[in-house]
């Protein structure tokens, strides 16, 4: 692997930057691998990287039907935080947040992780009670989170409107200072490059169309648009398409796939110092390093794989943004898109073994799995390598629905998040 550093940059600049090599190979698929990951998003690429790096399983392929990072990894608003209510969730998301803190160094790739703080704005008594409960629960779990008055929130985020006459006045806010954003594409590319350097084959334009099993039901490989590829261990990390992939192994899932939209504004000078989320009036906003306001909207109401949604959904969000930040009322929006998110009944992910031997699944991250990328990848790799879940992901098994052991972050947040 060609290492990146200030010195390398200077050296390359001397010969007109003609010496940079491609960041990963473009190999033909082999006949078989020790493990296959279906889905080249951040989660799948990261899982391949940790399989190679931490578990010595290097004969691995990541199969991606389009281009890597072209799914939700490249479509999300990159909010990273770990202030979830339940003990299991706090452990899971904070595992990821800790990994984010060292990720650029580990990958030798700048993922532009920026701990600028995430402010969750409260508008009513219910919000306030729920957020304060989160603050206390988080602190007991060693996760930072603090309660701010409206004035303190405005001091932290000056564009915020806290006028009492607003339709949805700001009554306070919860702030996680360690939370922030990262550069989505760099996460996919950084993992791809680092995994490739350890021997992982990254195979794009390779759609999995079937999963083969032997007489005992154990997986033996996959059928793809680029031929059959054998493997005794298969990890599925296909986000919105998970139900379709699992059906190839005869499994039904507790998932529904919905379009989730985002949009960006014209770029402007730095004006927005942090991330602000309002669950109640449904607005998520930050500013990218390019200067665009990055705005997250809601999901469409119905199951769909169309990868776009209807205009009234982002309009609703923009109305909320204009009220919270009147300064943005005249900004123009440049682009709007959708991704397909896989949502579980309790809004917590599923990460573990499946009833099919040799088949592992990482899904159900829904509207909020970018923040978990390094953690989910690490835990999926662990589960595949050891054929048993790590204690952190053990509660997030597929059996919890039948057992009634839901991890109900849906009820805890009362909205998509």
């Amino acid at each position, binding site marked *: 692997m060609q290492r990146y550093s200030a010195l390398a940059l200077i050296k390359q600049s001397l010969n007109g930057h003609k010496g940079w090599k491609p960041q990963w190979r473009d190999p033909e698929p082999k006949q078989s691998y020790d493990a296959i990951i279906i889905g080249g998003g951040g989660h799948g690429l990261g899982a391949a990287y940790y399989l190679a790096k931490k578990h010595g399983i290097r004969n691995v392929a990541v199969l991606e039907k*389009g281009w890597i990072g*072209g799914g939700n990894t490249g479509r999300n608003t990159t909010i990273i935080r770990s202030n979830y209510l339940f003990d299991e969730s706090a452990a899971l998301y904070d595992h990821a947040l800790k990994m984010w803190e060292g990720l650029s160094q580990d990958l030798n790739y700048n993922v532009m992780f920026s701990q600028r703080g995430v402010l969750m704005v409260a508008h009513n008594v219910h919000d306030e009670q729920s957020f304060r409960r989160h603050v206390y629960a988080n602190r007991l779990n060693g996760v930072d989170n603090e309660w701010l008055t409206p004035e303190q929130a405005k001091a932290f985020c000056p564009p915020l409107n806290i006028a009492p006459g607003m339709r949805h006045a700001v009554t306070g806010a919860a702030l996680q200072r360690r939370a922030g954003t990262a550069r989505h594409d760099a996460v996919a590319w950084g993992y791809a490059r680092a995994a490739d350097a350890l021997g992982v084959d990254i195979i794009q334009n390779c759609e999995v169309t079937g999963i083969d099993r032997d007489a005992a039901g154990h997986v033996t490989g996959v059928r793809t648009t680029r031929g059959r590829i054998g493997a005794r261990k298969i990890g599925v990390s296909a986000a919105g*398409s998970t*139900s*379709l992939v699992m059906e190839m192994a005869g499994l*039904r*899932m*507790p*998932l*529904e*796939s919905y379009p989730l939209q985002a949009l960006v504004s014209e770029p402007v000078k730095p004006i927005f110092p942090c991330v602000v989320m309002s669950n109640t009036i449904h607005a998520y906003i930050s500013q990218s390093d390019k200067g665009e306001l990055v705005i997250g909207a809601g999901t469409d*109401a*119905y*199951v*769909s*794989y*169309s*990868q*776009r949604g*209807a*205009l*009234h959904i982002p309009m609703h969000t923009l109305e909320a943004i204009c009220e919270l930040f009147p300064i943005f009322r005249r900004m123009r929006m440049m682009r*709007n898109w959708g991704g397909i998110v896989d949502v579980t*009944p309790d809004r917590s992910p599923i990460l573990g073994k499946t009833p099919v031997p040799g088949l592992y699944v990482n899904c159900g991250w829904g509207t909020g799995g970018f923040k978990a990328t390094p953690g989910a990848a690490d835990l999926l790799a662990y589960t595949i390598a050891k054929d048993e879940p790590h204690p952190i992901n053990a509660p997030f098994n597929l059996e919890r*629905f*039948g057992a009634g052991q839901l991890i109900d972050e849906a009820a805890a947040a009362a909205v998509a998040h």
Partner: protein
Amino acid sequence: MKLLPPRSPIKGSQEMLLIPCPYCGNRPEIEFAYGGEAHVVRAAAPRTVDDTAWTEFLYFRKNPRGDHAERWRHAYGCGRFFNVKRNTYTDQIEASYRIGETLP
């Protein structure tokens, strides 16, 4: 990548669905509430159902890419529930039918 086929009965790519209520006719999506997969039947005697079947009923859904039978309620119209057959890839609505009727 393949280009997506045109969306829904309304022309243009970003407009909301135009949903045919079997009682009121075509109305814009914002008049409706989505009710999830149709024809998920609650067992007449839940106590006789085993855990697997009960879990399936509560939580597991088809979630297909393609034809999907789903419930909608004309919440800001006649208020009634009915079923729609929609393609979840194109979002094209193929039929709507009353509760109790079978999928056309």
